[in-house]
């Protein structure tokens, strides 16, 4: 039975608006819709360029709306977290009065039967506005904007940036081979897969040989020793970012396994001061448990160094 591993890739992006989108967003913060003129047309929402020709637009802004006409709509019966409302609503294309293009936004009507092409809608503004497309809480049927009680007004400074909190959760199937690796880790075993065509041995998640484009089977399994020699290394000074787990400089070493033409790359090393790491140190595997389960790390095993400077070239 296939198992799945879940991971969420999330990041708080910050986008600079530039002059035109900035004008529109500041308009929203001030409960106003701003379009930009392009020839005979008023483009809403405004772009820095004409959408058909790409020509740069002179910054002639035109206030449009606040009310407009719905030209198309669809009904969202089950909103997701990404949606602007947490109860059923419509997404609609709305041609604001004075605009020649239509704006996409949410409409909160009285159920799906409250929506129709041609209906008139007006914005319901949020009390706290940040210069963001969601400063409009939603459009509602009618001609008149709805201003909330306790309107906090626009931000003190004109807005130049917006935030976008992206979050995507992936549920990825664990392959049979990856499951075998997990079981082996738990049993403190290291194994590789030998390509039946070229004889090279692969570790670390590859279930195939990239030279011969051959997928491996259980018959290709080879037990590997848990001792080896450091061939190359680096010490990384961590940079902070959302999701970073390290705070101190940490090493990653390359280990050439005893008796096999196998180099394990970018391995964690413990029990060794960073300044003492060098090519030729003899190491043995140790098994530790962390958030990912049982994982292999390496540590010096006290044997005499191997004095072969050519080892440094064994990166693969």
């Amino acid at each position, binding site marked *: 039975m*296939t198992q799945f591993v879940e*991971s969420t*890739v999330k990041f708080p992006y910050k*986008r600079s*608006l530039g002059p035109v*989108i900035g004008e529109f*967003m500041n308009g929203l913060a001030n409960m106003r819709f701003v379009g930009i003129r392009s020839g005979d047309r008023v*483009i*809403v*929402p405004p*772009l820095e360029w004409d*959408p*058909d020709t790409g020509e740069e637009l002179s910054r002639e802004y035109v206030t449009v709306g606040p009310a407009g006409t719905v*030209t*198309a*709509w*669809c*009904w*969202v*019966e089950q909103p*997701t*977290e*990404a*949606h*602007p409302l947490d109860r059923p609503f419509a*997404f*609609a*294309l709305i*041609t604001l009065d004075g605009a020649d*293009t*239509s*704006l*996409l*936004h*949410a409409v909160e009507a009285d159920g*799906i039967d409250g929506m129709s*092409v041609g209906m008139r809608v007006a914005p319901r503004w949020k009390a706290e506005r940040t210069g*963001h*497309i*969601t400063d409009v809480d939603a459009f509602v049927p009618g001609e008149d904007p709805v201003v909330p009680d306790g309107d906090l007004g626009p931000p003190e400074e004109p807005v130049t940036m*917006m935030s*976008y909190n*992206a*979050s*995507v*959760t*992936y*549920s*990825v*199937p664990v*392959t*049979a081979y990856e499951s075998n690796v997990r079981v082996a880790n738990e049993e403190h075993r290291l194994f590789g897969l030998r390509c039946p065509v070229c004889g090279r041995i692969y570790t670390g998640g*590859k*279930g*195939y040989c*990239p*030279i*011969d*484009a051959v*997928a491996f089977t259980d018959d290709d399994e080879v037990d590997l020793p848990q001792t080896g020699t450091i061939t190359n290394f680096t010490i990384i000074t961590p940079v902070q970012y959302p999701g970073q787990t390290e705070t101190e400089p940490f090493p990653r070493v390359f280990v050439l396994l005893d008796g096999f033409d196998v180099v394990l790359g970018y391995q964690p090393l413990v029990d060794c001061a960073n300044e003492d790491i060098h090519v030729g140190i003899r190491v043995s595997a140790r098994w530790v448990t962390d958030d990912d389960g049982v994982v292999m790390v390496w540590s010096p095993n006290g044997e005499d160094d191997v004095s072969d400077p050519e080892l440094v070239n064994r990166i693969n």
Partner: protein
Amino acid sequence: MPTKDQIAIIGWSVSPMVRHTDKTEVQLLLDVITGAVEDAGISRADLDFTCAGSCDYVAGQAFSFVQNIDAIGAWPPKRDSHVEMDGAWALYEAWIRLQLGDIDVALATGSGRSSTAAPSSIYPMEMDPYYLAPLGADAVTLAALQARVLLDAGKTSERQMAEIAARNRSDAKSNPHAQVTGDFDVDGLLAEEYVRAPLRRHDLPPISDGAAAVIIARGDRAADLCEHPVWITGFAHCSESHYPGMRDLRQAGSATAAAAAAGIGDGPIDVAELQAAFTHEEPLLVEALGLSDEVSINPSGGPLAANPIMATGLVRVAEAARQIRDGGKHRTLAHATSGPCLQQNLVCILEGAS
């Protein structure tokens, strides 16, 4: 514009299409590349150029395509490229590359495991980052808006959409690579709830994991390698502006333009494989491409039967080629699309030997 050298499709392979594969994307590609080179009667060593189509966000990892090179067997190193687009555009890049005249055989692939994340969480991220993404406006929402426009313009009806759903899934019964197949009663479909009114579940494509590989060869080499080369006689793509409120959603102008540039008017089309992932897109595209009632549309079942995003378009090419090589047809069309409401369209016209 005529091609300096005729380029032909000489082999292909399409993976099984499933809701949840337990294979990695590399594995999917390994299988279809092996299948394609075997179909073409060549080996990986014969590939002079390879181009892959795939998407980091679908894979959930930056540089996800890098490990996909492993499926090519790129040793000795290969001339190779990658597009963050459907494999149909990877094929376009390969087709252009072969026309430079110094190499003869190229591979294009498309792959993706859409099952790994909810489309509603990913696809807003391909929309306008200031005005659309923050509203969570995703592909289904935008498709539904276009469907409303087409319904109101009288260009389709909910009944016609349900008929299209039923026909595609019924035709898909004879396609071993299809995922959603079967006989569906149109009235029964129309009685179902809306998912994103006016779209019902049957109007939407399935979520599919899959891959495809297509091999092309140039001129004499194509004829040497293959008894029944399928000649690419026209290949073009075209884009429209992005924001849906600034476009005329009753038309697919860039599809018309791409088809014209690909020479659609040069002769009759027997079969069209269209990347119409939503039912209402089929009549829109049929009209935009000027296809007559005689043209058989999506005999494979199309994306309504299997929608391996980043490969769906390339699968249309393979299916259109199949109709010629294995189906005895003479001139077929494959279409691919990208972006909200058919923003970008690609047309590939194929012919058998005359």
